[in-house]
């Protein structure tokens, strides 16, 4: 199991974002540095969800927005550690859609269940493997300033 280190500010920010966009899915990028066994996330960047046709259960970040997020990350000496999104009234567990659309091998995908407008469980899943053919999600342990906050049972 990998480890995702978050600051309390990032933890609260990504969960609050899910509450703000409820009943739609929120999404964004996590910026940080790679470390043994996982990532140390220093910042979260909220992104737009282009799936306005089905925002209650789908998200997509425009590639140009990622180009700009990466540019800013490089300026800060950081890299893209992963992404976050929310599941309105749905468990904080990756779905077949999440898996099919996951291509950032080595990065963590953080999902927050937002139940009736309130952030509930947050889980993180590392996209492990080396190719599209052997990729798989492995649950991370999320540490917020040293405290284990995930995994929790959904």
């Amino acid at each position, binding site marked *: 199991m990998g480890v995702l280190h978050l600051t309390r500010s990032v933890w609260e920010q990504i969960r609050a974002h899910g509450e703000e966009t409820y009943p739609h*899915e929120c999404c964004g990028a996590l910026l940080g540095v790679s470390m043994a066994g996982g990532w140390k996330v220093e910042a979260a960047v909220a992104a737009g969800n282009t799936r306005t046709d*089905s925002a209650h259960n*789908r998200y997509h970040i425009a590639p140009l927005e990622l180009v*700009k997020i990466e540019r800013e990350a490089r300026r800060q000496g950081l890299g893209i550690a992963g992404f976050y999104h929310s599941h309105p009234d749905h468990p904080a567990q990756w*779905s077949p859609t999440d898996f099919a*659309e996951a*291509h*950032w091998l080595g990065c963590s995908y953080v999902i927050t269940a937002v139940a009736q407008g309130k952030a509930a469980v947050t889980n993180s899943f590392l996209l492990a493997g080396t190719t*599209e053919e052997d990729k798989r999600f492995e649950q991370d342990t999320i540490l917020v300033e040293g405290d284990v906050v995930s995994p929790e049972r959904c």
Partner: protein
Amino acid sequence: MTVFIPTPLRPYAGGKDTVEIDAPTVAAALELLTGTHPDLRKHLFTAEGRLRAFVNLYLNDEDVRYLPEKEATSVKATDTLSIIPSIAGGN
């Protein structure tokens, strides 16, 4: 031209986040990139040699697939090429 390598592909580019490539077009740059880092090829291209559907290429701030010349677009030394795998999902 500077090619920005995304996190998932850095292990196949010698761990680098950027690679400097001297090439006349986007296609030539990709050919040179995968020539010097052959492990990158299968992550960028299908067995038939087509760019994988989830791989987005941005020449500066322009999506290469919507440029008139697409991968045949000429590039300058000051240009940047960003490789951006798609990010999407949902419950």
